[in-house]
């Protein structure tokens, strides 16, 4: 038999080795040669603290009791790990960008850096982890008991183990206030322990399968012949346990510590996604054979939780037993160390620091190094947590089966799940909802599982299980709402998480988050988009010097000064004091939160800056930068649309102007020509009259009448010009009176028809529709019609020219269309015809100077209507639009 003293000696030697490894790793990391210390393999191995002393010993015990059910504890984490892309990657990214120090910090930070939520989650974690630590102490003590015999005092062993663990944790877990909360020494030590426990279990498995059973085939036969040959599965427990272990893998404070906080590179997750399930598979591969062999060779009544030790001892394999013992010892110690670190961080950041800050209301400006306070509070927390674990172990009797205690702890920490998952995937999750959910889940867990776990009559009297508290039958702890017959664990998981989620959801729906909460919510949920930080601080009026004083106390003088100098340099300033910009405050808060947690860092900065933090306006401005960009883009688009329209108008105008200028030139030559022609003939004929004394009377008369006609033409031209100029300047007086369209048309047609009987234009009218009474200036209107009709007479090129006149009333306006059957006006000239001096042809026959339509347009504007060219009518078509009654002002 292995002597107890030898065992203690080996154990101490092993612990010394771990100290050395951790110390060497710290030294290397400090020298900046972290290198392989931070490899994916080490990361994967560090995750193995999931496999604690409970799983090391308890898995075999569980297998001996209920067959394959033990494997659910490994299937859940496998599902989470292979699904790393969905949840873990996001958690790690959030943890890295937001400098998250623990799961309580994550929850608190997500829900607006809430101190109360941090406290709640911390309490939950402490209560949920204490039985777990007790479990590890128990497993180590039991293991010592196997070697030392029953006479040894188990409590003394537990005390020494607890003290040793506290020492190790304090030394390596609180060496420094690392900005990222990474503990190189501890991580390497637990990686070594991970290898030891895997090797130990595999060695024992190989021995059992090949050494005892005689090969895999024989081992299978042995399983068939064993009491657990039938897979006596309870489907509800199977599903619940798988779900529970997956949940616990995410929510356990120590798992969060190694998964997220200690993660140094996101890509390590990719490796761990398959490597860690492989590790779990190897750990559980030999559990059933060991259990089966143990059941076969050990006497009835032997504790199956200790088969890992007793089976090799039964075959006198003391070396193997020693290895197994070290494996179990590793599993227990690594879990306790990491759990203590994680919990102490939480306790110190979320409970001690806020209290300390409040107690010294002078606040963060008081000089002096605050780091020793943080470190001291962590060290005391570590000792306190281990003491709690010991007390729990001492007074819970240590009799319950290991696995049961572990599962109870799992359910407890799982209460964080809705707040955690909701927080990173649902922006609508609020602080109120999260607080309610966690608190209610916690209470239900305490009531239905944790307190009953002490045994009937310890906390609750037996009557409560029978008739419920105060006789309320519906509230029996293990049959809530009268639903009986459920497995107590399934019952507790079901009700605690169901009520938790309901409270979380309803609370979130009905409450309204504060601005900071909404900002954090958006940042967390959209972490891939906002991987650079979002702004949490508005403009404030704090002195940089005060900030430096505070930062020095938390980060240490050197680091703080280096940070300030760097920021000042980035701002283009020399010296230690940068401008206090919101960006700088954010950076500083993140740096501080790496040491003391988000809520505390926020509170400390809040004290200095007078609590000026993000306002709704800031939120609107900052959180929805993209929305702003979108708005800007829409505005830009609208502007560019406007610009395009303007440009098109300008282009049109320019074109018109160019044409007009060409026209004007043409007109100038035209008008000089027009004026010159009558002038020339006037001069010529007046010279003839002057020179020829003896001219016949008839000759003289003829020449005089030519002169007369030419002066008439000149006068008409000048009249037109004058008319146009009067109209354009608005100096015209209108003589309005009621008149029918028909009468005006009659007048206009009468005035034109008489001139040229030969080339007569047939005019088609619809007299019954022309009987519309207008209040307008009939003379001016007739002038317009005359112009249009005479244009048709002059230019209509059809063989039998026709002009169709149709009158219609549209609303309170009268529309007169005058459409001829000629070839119309070419499209590119349509825009020109109403301009002054526009003439489409050189037809001298026209006789006018191209002012007719321009005058028409001006008249129609004065009459409150308009005249337009109507394209697509099969000929030249003009539409005259008139109001039925001219406004009095016009």
């Amino acid at each position, binding site marked *: 038999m292995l002597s107890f003293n030898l065992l203690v000696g080996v154990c101490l030697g092993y612990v010394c080795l771990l100290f050395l490894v951790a110390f060497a790793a710290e030294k290397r990391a400090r020298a900046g040669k972290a290198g392989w210390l931070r490899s994916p393999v080490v990361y994967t191995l560090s995750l193995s603290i999931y496999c604690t002393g409970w799983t090391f010993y308890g898995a075999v015990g569980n297998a001996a009791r209920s*067959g*394959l059910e033990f494997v659910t504890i490994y299937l859940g984490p496998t*599902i989470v790990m*292979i699904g*790393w892309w*969905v949840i873990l990657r996001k958690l790690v990214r959030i943890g890295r960008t937001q400098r998250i120090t623990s799961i309580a910090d994550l929850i608190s930070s997500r829900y607006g850096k809430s101190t109360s939520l941090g406290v709640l989650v911390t309490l939950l974690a402490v209560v949920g982890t204490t039985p777990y630590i007790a479990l590890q102490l128990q497993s180590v003590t039991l293991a010592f008991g196997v070697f030392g015999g029953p006479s040894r005092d188990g409590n003394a062993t537990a005390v020494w183990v607890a003290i040793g663990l506290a020492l190790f944790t304090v030394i390596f877990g609180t060496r420094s206030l690392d900005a990222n909360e990474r503990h190189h020494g501890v991580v390497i030590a637990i990686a070594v322990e991970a290898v030891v426990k895997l090797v130990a279990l595999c060695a024992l498995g190989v021995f059992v399968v090949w050494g005892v059973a005689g090969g895999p085939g024989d081992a299978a036969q042995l399983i068939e012949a064993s009491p657990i040959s039938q897979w006596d599965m309870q*489907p509800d427990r199977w*599903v619940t346990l798988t779900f529970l272990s997956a949940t616990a893998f995410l929510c356990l404070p120590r798992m969060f510590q190694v998964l997220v906080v200690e993660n140094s590179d996101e890509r390590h997750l990719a490796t761990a996604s398959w490597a860690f399930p492989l590790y779990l598979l190897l750990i559980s591969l030999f559990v059933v054979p060991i259990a089966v062999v143990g059941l076969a060779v050990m006497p009835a009544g032997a504790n199956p939780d200790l088969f890992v030790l007793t089976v090799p001892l039964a075959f006198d394999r003391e070396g193997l037993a020693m290895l197994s013992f070290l494996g179990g010892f590793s599993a227990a110690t690594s879990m306790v160390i990491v759990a203590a670190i994680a919990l102490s961080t939480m306790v110190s950041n979320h409970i001690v620091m806020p209290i300390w800050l409040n107690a010294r209301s002078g606040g963060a400006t008081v000089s002096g190094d605050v780091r020793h306070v943080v470190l001291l509070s962590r060290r005391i927390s570590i000792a306190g947590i281990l003491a709690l674990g010991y007390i729990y172990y001492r007074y819970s009797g240590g009799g319950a089966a290991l696995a049961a205690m572990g599962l109870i702890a799992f359910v407890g920490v799982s209460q964080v799940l809705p707040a955690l998952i909701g927080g990173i995937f649902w922006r609508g999750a609020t602080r109120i909802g999260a607080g309610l959910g966690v608190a209610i889940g916690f209470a239900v867990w305490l009531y239905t599982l944790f307190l009953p776990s002490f045994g009937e009559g310890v906390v609750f009297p037996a009557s409560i299980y029978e008739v419920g508290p105060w006789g309320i039958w519906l509230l029996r702890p293990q049959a809530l709402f009268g639903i009986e017959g459920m497995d107590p664990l399934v019952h507790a998981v079901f009700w605690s998480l169901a009520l938790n989620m309901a409270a979380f959801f309803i609370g979130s729906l009905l409450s309204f988050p504060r601005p900071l909460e909404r900002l954090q919510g958006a940042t967390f949920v959209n972490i*891939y988009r906002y991987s650079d930080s979002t702004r949490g601080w508005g403009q404030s009026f704090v002195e940089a010097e005060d900030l430096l004083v505070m930062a020095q106390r938390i980060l240490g003088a050197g680091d703080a000064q280096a940070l300030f100098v760097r920021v000042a340099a980035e701002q283009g300033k020399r010296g230690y004091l940068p401008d206090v910009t919101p960006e700088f405050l954010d950076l500083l808060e993140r740096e501080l939160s790496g040491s003391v947690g988000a809520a505390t860092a926020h509170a400390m900065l809040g004290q200095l800056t007078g609590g000026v933090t993000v306002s709704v306006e800031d939120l609107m401005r900052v959180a929805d930068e*993209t929305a702003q960009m979108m708005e800007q883009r829409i505005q830009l688009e609208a502007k560019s649309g406007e610009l395009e329209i303007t440009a098109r108008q300008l282009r049109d105008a320019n074109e018109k102007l160019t044409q007009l200028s060409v026209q004007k030139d043409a007109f100038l030559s035209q008008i000089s020509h027009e004026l010159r022609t009558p002038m020339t003939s006037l001069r010529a004929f007046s010279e003839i009259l002057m020179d020829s004394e003896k001219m016949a009377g008839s000759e003289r008369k003829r020449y005089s009448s030519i002169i007369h006609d030419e002066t008439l033409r000149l006068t008409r031209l000048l009249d037109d010009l004058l008319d146009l100029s009067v109209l354009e300047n608005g100096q015209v007086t209108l003589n309005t009176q009621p008149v029918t369209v028909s009468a005006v048309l009659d007048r206009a047609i009468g005035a034109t028809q008489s001139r040229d009987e030969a080339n007569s234009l047939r005019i088609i009218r619809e007299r019954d529709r022309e009987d519309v009474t207008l209040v307008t200036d009939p003379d001016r209107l007739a002038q317009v019609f005359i112009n249009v009709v005479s244009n048709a007479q002059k230019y209509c090129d059809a063989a039998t020219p026709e002009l169709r006149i149709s009158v219609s009333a549209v609303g309170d306006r009268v529309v007169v269309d005058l459409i001829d059957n000629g070839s119309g006006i070419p499209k590119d000239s349509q825009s020109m015809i109403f301009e002054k001096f526009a003439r489409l042809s050189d037809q001298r026959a026209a006789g006018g100077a191209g002012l007719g339509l321009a005058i028409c347009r001006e008249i129609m504007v004065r009459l409150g209507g308009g005249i337009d060219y109507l394209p697509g009518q099969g000929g030249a078509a003009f539409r005259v639009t008139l109001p039925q009654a001219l406004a009095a002002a016009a």
Partner: protein
Amino acid sequence: MNDRPEPMFLARETYRRRRLMDAARFLPFLGAFVFIIPALWAQATGTAAGKIYIFGTWICLICLAFIISRRLPTAGQADEAEKEPGRSGPG
């Protein structure tokens, strides 16, 4: 939120990367599915056969996770892809 107009179709390489990310998201559901199946038939099965099923599927899942994690884009590329609206992406 992201209002950058997204192309209707993607280049072959980007398309593959997106589908691989889909596969990574799907994997945990596959895992949950195969691990829940025993709840349907395990009462009538022996431990040895159950063990073969569990460990067999377990190894398959590990292999799938290995293949997918090896091919998945590095963090930077993944971010670019994630930034696209509607993470399921255009088909």
